């Protein structure tokens, strides 16, 4: 049973890392889209 917590920790860590990275991608996308909209508005 004690070893199972390591298994759960490894799987959670994997999806946590992927989740954080995908979160940064989404944030960067929305920021760049906003910036692109600003540029187009000013033209």
């Amino acid at each position, binding site marked *: 049973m004690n070893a199972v917590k390591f*298994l759960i920790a*490894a799987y959670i*860590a994997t999806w946590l890392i*992927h989740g954080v990275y995908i979160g940064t991608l989404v944030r960067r996308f929305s920021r*760049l889209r906003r*910036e692109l909209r600003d*540029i187009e508005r000013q033209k």
Partner: protein
Amino acid sequence: MKRLFPILSAITAALLAYALYQALVVAPADAQQGEVYRIIYYHVPSGWMFMLLFSINFVASIQYLVSTKPSRQAAAKWTVIGVGVVGTIVTFLPQVQVQLKSAGMRPSAIATTVLAIPVFYFLVGKLFPGENLDVLAVTTAEVGVVFCTIVLVTGPIWARPVWGIWWAPGDIRLTSTLVLWLIYVSYLMLRRFSNSAQMQVLAAALAVFGALDVPLVYFSIWFFRTQHPQPIIGGGGSIDPRMLHVMMLNGAAFLCFGFLVCWQRFRLELLHREIEAAHAMDSLVGSGVAAKASLPLNRSPQ
């Protein structure tokens, strides 16, 4: 194209869920390690992914470096063909075959890998011409670092209950993987913080040297005494066929997931460059928009 991404995402999500179910429920428990061995189904495919992505980064960086001069391009092309042909022939020499087999390697697996080098090289050059090579390089480096981080996190979590230690200091597999991670993190830092006009060339050169660590990581368990287990495919290790099936399923799921993430990161980089170009154009025509620019040239988006 807009519809394709949600469809592929749904298929990948279903595949990942099915692979997770197979890994946690269907695959048999290990006779020695019990349930904790199931970390292998995330640890190993993540390892495959970072090696694949760093290899693509290496090829894209080489292509980017040689793309400035036709003579360099021709030299690189013939070198790659030479490596593929000579490498394959050498693998089938009787003396080499004996040595490979004694090291626990399958000559056919090595020959296939060596033959794949020129194929891979020309495919990358064909699919990603010009500046897209640099976009591909930064994409694969960043996503590769994510998968490498997962390997470096899940490895110690697995090692603790099995070996009794989190980390084996001095172990070449572990150390070379950590060094590889550090090299690619510094590659991303260089791209993020350098303002030099030569940044892309510098980054490509760093990537070429960094990628030299990939074969060391891969072959370290064959050529050195290490705490890390032997490879289960193409090497001296062995695995239950039911476990191998689940492993391949997770490998396919991670490959699809990695492809989708790379696709989006690639699009992000293109969008970033589009905005940079718009800012540069505005600066030239002096419309005043450039004064509001928050992204200096040659910087990755935050």
